[in-house]
């Protein structure tokens, strides 16, 4: 088995997939803690459907670099959802559901009506479940992913305390002079960037799992914001890495294997939390 793994690791596309997978898992789990606590667990789902819609448009328009269209559209939707949340007429979960299903429907519709591909259902399936796209990354994709991940991690570390304050108590944060609108904007933008990156890995239907499971698992065990954040990042990386190895060896789809490992980790953490949690 080790030999088989060694053989696969000689291929650059397998190495690319592992690098990208680990980075995406790390980034998504960082934001996950905040999103879960802000009661925005489903934002990942909503945004990824928007990204799917944008991707269909990009495919139909025959754009060479889909990200150029998908990223701005997703960022815009994230900003509208997370920022407008308070004043909007349709709020929170309803707004997310509305945007998510309509983007999904229009995306599929556009793909069907204007399709240029011969294997339509294969294309759709890939976008929804990310089945093979992680293994077809070009060197350019990998570089883009590394750069964006580093940006996300840097921004998160620099704004860590403000993100905590805004997540824990937005009115207090505003009263002491933190620019809560700006911090919410930062959260929205990096959420969107992560979603677009993660679409390559698990596809748009399974992204929420990557965002919420590590955070939820960490919250079963740990009790301070910092330990929850650190543990969820570590756990997410471990799950993504082992999920990818399993999928390579067993020939299972990458995205769903990673999510299955995340679910398993959550079950273990819940059990461990019940029998005496760590009080850190």
């Amino acid at each position, binding site marked *: 088995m080790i030999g088989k793994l060694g053989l696969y690791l000689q291929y650059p596309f397998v190495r690319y997939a592992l690098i990208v997978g680990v980075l995406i898992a790390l980034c998504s789990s960082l934001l996950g803690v905040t999103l879960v606590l802000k009661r925005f667990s489903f934002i990942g789902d909503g945004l990824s459907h928007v990204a799917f819609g944008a991707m269909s448009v990009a495919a139909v328009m025959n754009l060479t670099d889909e990200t150029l269209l998908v990223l701005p559209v997703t960022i815009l939707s994230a900003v509208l959802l997370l920022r407008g949340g308070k004043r909007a007429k349709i709020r929170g979960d309803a707004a997310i559901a509305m945007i998510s299903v309509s983007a999904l429907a229009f995306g599929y519709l556009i793909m069907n009506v204007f399709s240029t591909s011969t294997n339509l259902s294969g294309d759709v399936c890939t976008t929804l479940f990310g089945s093979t796209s992680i293994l077809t990354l070009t060197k350019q994709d990998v570089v883009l992913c590394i750069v964006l991940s580093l940006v996300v991690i840097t921004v998160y*570390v620099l704004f860590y305390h403000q993100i905590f304050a805004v997540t824990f*108590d937005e*009115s207090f944060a505003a*009263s002491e002079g933190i*620019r809560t609108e700006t911090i919410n904007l930062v959260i929205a933008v990096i959420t969107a960037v992560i979603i677009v990156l993660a679409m390559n890995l698990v596809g748009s239907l399974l992204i929420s799992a990557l965002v919420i499971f590590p955070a939820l698992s960490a919250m079963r065990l740990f009790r301070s*914001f910092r330990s929850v954040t650190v543990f969820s990042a570590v756990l997410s990386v471990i799950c993504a890495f082992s999920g990818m190895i399993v999928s390579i060896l067993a020939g299972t789809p990458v995205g769903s294997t990673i999510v299955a490992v995340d679910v398993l980790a959550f079950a273990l953490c819940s059990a461990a939390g019940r029998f005496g949690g760590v009080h850190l």
Partner: protein
Amino acid sequence: MALITVKDLALGYEGQKIVGGLTFEVRTGDYLCIVGENGSGKTTLMKTLLKLQDPLSGTIELGDGLLRNEIGYLPQQTLVQKDFPASVREVVLSGCLGKGGFHPFYTREEKALADKQMERMEVLDLADRSIRDLSGGQQQRVLLARALCAADKVLVLDEPVSGLDPRVTEELYTLIEKLNKGGITVIMISHDIDAALKYASHILHIGKTVFFGTKEDYLKSETGRQYAARGGEER
């Protein structure tokens, strides 16, 4: 010069007036209680004082060199905080974030300040515990320590004792009284008219009639007598 001078303030949402004609001032060392029925605009007034919301009309002036972010705030607890994984120290330290715009790390002074305020609120021994594991009274003291880190001249408290049992309520009131005696100006929203009359130096009553004055004058006024009597009956 007063710390806070409010002139002819009208409050509301989207042009809908809730309450108008508010004129009052707060001086250093005052203990002002804001009383009135639900929906009379108490919380809206507080948010306006903290500049979280704009008034419909009227002015709020700060005097004696008081800056807007030198007003410490104890908001009502939100649903999100009930199961939030955060240590007491993390929460209290977040009160230090208002001092500088860009703030990736806490300085040694800020950590010392947080320790000092935790000690003052008698929660230093809980510093590494998670806030969701504490009792209601302990949580309020932690949030008071956070407010004191942000500002120790003026404290604005929104229903600080709601949901607490009578003994803990009494303890918290005593603690707030001690802070006030130590020179901190207190502005408190309260449902509890008895406590307002016991601890406050000034009363602002908002509702159909608006009253502002010292506690003694309030008790002599028609509004005050009626409200105090009804507050007594409700219990």
